[in-house]
């Protein structure tokens, strides 16, 4: 039985998660094994990893051996993989204790973390009200962003200090901004994707949520490095990232680019002024120099992202036929159903609307007569955008870009239910880093007038993750962000 008496890190995390069930952070908990593991490793000789004994949460699209890995989809509601993903295994090896699998958008498609098991609620909503019943909760609770909303909410509310997410078009950075924590998307190819249920192979990047940058560095250092199971991993040997205390104290002036193309109409006045204010604030320190920059191919980024991601999604989703694992329809008419009709029923019953919409779009783009027109053209756009960024960093000597992540405060769950967006405007702030494979960090800056965190994003050169995080340390040391901590109120 779960005992409430012992004071342990894992116990506190469990208590907080259970207390705030209304946030719907988990799809599946590992409480008992987590407590057992904590017991076991506390008696072992403590290794010197800063992660040792830390309770963590992992997004429910990372495979964990014999543990439900649902991707918040009915399709995988009963799927227990027979293997563990590379990065999760490495975290376990460093002494991390997995407390649960976090809720998300179905197959990580979306920005509300609202899959087959209901929405994740934004923990900041609870600073204003306490939801009582399900009906009213929808009007007082807000979306947590997505798709890694469960992980972001748990870290934002301080249930755990580190959580794992995945970022395909902003799925770490968007909810991090919504929930008021750091969200780090490393360079494509820095961390192994083996065991991360694929959304878009060429965009997917595993990453982390944390409440300080050092924790992001510890986690990244624990999991990076070669992995024979992922052929797309960078072949360069990984050099461990340095924390703030380890890195040199040399204060070179940082040149930061401000891309005009990110100042879109949808960006709210309040969020724009947060961006501008930080620029002024940093300029005044004398350590930062700002330059306005252009990304010529930015207008085509969203279209290219939509086409490329839909195409890969259609392809990746083809494996879900219900034969070897996953949902299999019970509605079979043995007298006339063929393989195709059973397949269709299985998929219709278990895929949500958004997933089916993207599969349909992707298959359209991949038709022989469309491939050149859409897919190949989008690949060109993708290369052009990567090239735009490369030029900024290499030729214009920009150290990183500072941009918004989301355009306004989160809407309520009820409002979200009314809307029928499949791709949101907010994707526009985040997809470039995925198109170009660049490292990017979403960090909290201040609280909005309605009491929600406002985050901003920095984007750095490819494989310069160390430099990017060092810059983030320097930026964030210039102000104090009031992190939310719901765990103390349990």
């Amino acid at each position, binding site marked *: 039985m779960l005992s409430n008496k012992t004071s342990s890190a894992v116990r506190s995390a469990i208590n907080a998660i259970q207390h705030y069930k209304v946030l719907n952070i988990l799809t599946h908990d590992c409480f008992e094994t987590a407590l057992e593991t904590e017991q076991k490793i506390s008696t072992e000789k403590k290794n010197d990893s800063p992660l040792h004994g830390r309770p963590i949460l992992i997004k429910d*699209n*990372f*495979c964990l051996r014999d543990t439900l*890995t649902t*991707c918040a989809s009915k399709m*995988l509601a009963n*799927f227990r*993989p*027979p*293997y563990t*993903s590379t990065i999760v295994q490495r975290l376990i090896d460093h002494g991390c204790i997995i407390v649960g699998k976090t809720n998300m958008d179905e197959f990580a498609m979306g920005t509300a973390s609202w899959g087959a098991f209901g929405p994740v609620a934004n923990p900041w909503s609870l600073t204003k009200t306490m939801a009582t019943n399900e009906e009213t909760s929808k009007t007082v609770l807000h979306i947590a962003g997505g798709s890694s909303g469960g992980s972001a909410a748990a870290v934002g509310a301080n249930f755990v200090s580190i959580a794992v997410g995945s970022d395909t078009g902003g799925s770490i950075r968007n909810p991090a901004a919504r929930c008021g924590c750091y969200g780090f998307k490393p360079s494509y190819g820095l961390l192994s*994707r*083996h*065991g*991360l*249920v*694929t959304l*878009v*192979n*060429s965009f997917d990047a595993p990453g982390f949520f944390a409440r300080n940058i050092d924790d992001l560095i510890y986690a990244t250092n624990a999991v990076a490095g070669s992995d*024979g*199971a*992922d*052929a*797309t991993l960078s*072949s360069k040997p990984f050099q461990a990232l340095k924390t703030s205390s380890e890195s040199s104290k040399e204060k070179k002036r940082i040149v930061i680019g401000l891309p005009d193309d990110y100042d879109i109409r949808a960006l709210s006045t309040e969020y724009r002024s947060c961006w501008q204010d930080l620029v002024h604030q940093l300029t005044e320190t004398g350590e930062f120099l700002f330059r306005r920059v252009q990304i010529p191919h930015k207008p085509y980024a969203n279209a290219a992202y939509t086409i490329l991601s839909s*195409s*890969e999604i*259609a*392809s990746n*989703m*083809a*494996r879900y*036929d219900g*034969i*070897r*694992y996953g949902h299999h329809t019970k509605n079979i008419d*043995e007298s006339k159903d063929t*393989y*195709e009709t059973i*397949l269709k029923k299985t998929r219709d019953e278990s895929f949500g609307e958004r997933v089916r919409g993207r599969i349909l779009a992707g*298959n359209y783009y*991949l*038709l*022989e007569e469309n*491939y050149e027109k859409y*897919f190949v053209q989008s*690949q060109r756009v993708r290369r052009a955008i990567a090239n735009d960024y490369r030029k900024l960093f290499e030729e214009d000597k920009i150290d990183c870009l500072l941009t918004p992540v989301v355009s306004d405060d989160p809407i309520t769950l009820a409002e979200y239910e009314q809307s029928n967006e499949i791709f949101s405007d907010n994707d526009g702030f985040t997809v470039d880093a995925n198109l170009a494979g660049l490292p990017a960090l979403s960090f909290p800056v201040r609280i909005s007038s309605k009491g929600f965190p406002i985050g901003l994003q920095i984007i750095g050169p490819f494989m310069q993750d160390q430099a990017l995080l060092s810059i983030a340390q320097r930026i964030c040391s210039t102000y104090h962000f009031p992190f939310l901590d719901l765990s103390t109120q349990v």
Partner: protein
Amino acid sequence: MAAAAAAAVLSSGRFYALIGFEIHVKLATTTKMFSSSSSAPAQATNSQVTPHDMALPGSMPYFNRACLEAGVRAALGLNCQINKASHFERKHYFYPDSPSGYQITQQRFPFASNGVFKYPLLVKRDKLKSSTKYKFVDTPKSFVLKQCRIERIQLEHDTGRSIHDEPQHCTLIDLNRCGTGLIEIVTKPDIQSSLEGESFLRELNRLLLKYGICETSGLETALRIDANVSLHRTDTKPDGSRVEIKNLGSFIDVRQAIDFEIKRQEQILSANSSIEKETRTYDTNKHQTIHLRRKEDQIDYRFMIEPNLPPLYLYDDSDKHKYQKDLVNIDEIKRDLPISPLEERKEILEKYKDFLTAEHLNELLRLDMNDYFCDVMSQLDNNHLRHIALEVLLNDVKSISFDGRKIRKFAQAVSPSLFADIINHVDQRIITRFSLYTLLTLCNKNRDSTRTLKSFLDEHNMYAINDQNQMEQICSKALEENPKQIVRYQTNPKKAIEQLHASVCKKYHGHPHVYSILFFSNDFPTISFDEANTTPTNHDGSGSTKTNTN
């Protein structure tokens, strides 16, 4: 029947056929193409399956370089241009034994393209001489060499296997084969008849085996062939219409399917209809092709670059740029290649030129005997013995192996050393030419390949009668028993001798030597294996004995 009809269509001068192949070759690698799973055949169902092989979510492919090395060997053997950068693509279609819903292949950017492959036409000796079509045999030392251009070679993986259980009303799936490495060789439509097609495939098969690209020629597993066949009126240009015959499993099937299709298309064209683009399958029981689907029903495979695999890079000695160590060097592979079948045959002709002609070798090839021939040759000490062996192969063994169709079984039952031993015994007159055939048949039926020649000879008492006195007695006795023949000898000596032969042979089951029987006609013919067609065709040894008998 179909063969004659097809040949008639082509020789009528009114039509010409264009045939191209897509050949799937199962690579002889120990592990699969994109996973560490074993690729051994015939293992317990679903015992060789990794997460990637069953397309578990989150699993990723990792390329097995042994497949690429095998592919490069094939590309070199087929004289292809090797592309130093190539890409993998996904080919999408739903089928229960294709777990990921797509196959990883190289549709648009294959690693090898634009090759050309020369192959000897396996035409019968007499046809070779009489044929006007193949006049270009330049010297007796050479073959009728034809060539076929190779469009491309691509790497891809195999699917699993569906087992349909009709009584239980279900389909079972075995994923052991899923993910094993294949190369697909796509030819240009340069083949013009079923004979050319079969000749091409056999030479290709020899190359693939020689270069260690695939295992055995147990065609059922190593090669699967799709044939594109189109017949055109002589006065028209090819219009791209063609019929694809899927999944042919043997050379014989390929030949028969092509012949059937040529005849079928001739009937369509003769009725002034046109050939529709369609996919057909070959029914090996009914010996005919059967409609599968029309062009309009063709699946759009929605090809897409495989995003989980980086481009495939190859390099050679000329590349100054230092690649990673585990990349494949084309020149290194080239240096390690064994001699090609074509070159090997040139060497053989040179080595055995005292008795072996190109025609002989062509016949050996046609009978699929050349490997066995070479093995036997190396077991024999001199050209005299080798020459005897060659003639025995082209006569007795040809007949025993049903024109080479069962040569593999024969080669297994009668090891080259046993065969060489038999030839030695024939030369030493311990075995007669008559009993040789019987002996080979017995050996062929024997399953214990370690059995010695002596045990055969002992068991069946097949030692020749070499004692002259004994032979004289036999002959005298034969004369006594056949007084009619003595009378006949005066009018028709040839016939009388033949009859006496027959009676002696019948009585002594081939124990006496031919020349010994002829002894009583005071004649000592030398047995020339070149000319003597002394193959007895049945057990009682009453074969033709056309030795010179005055």
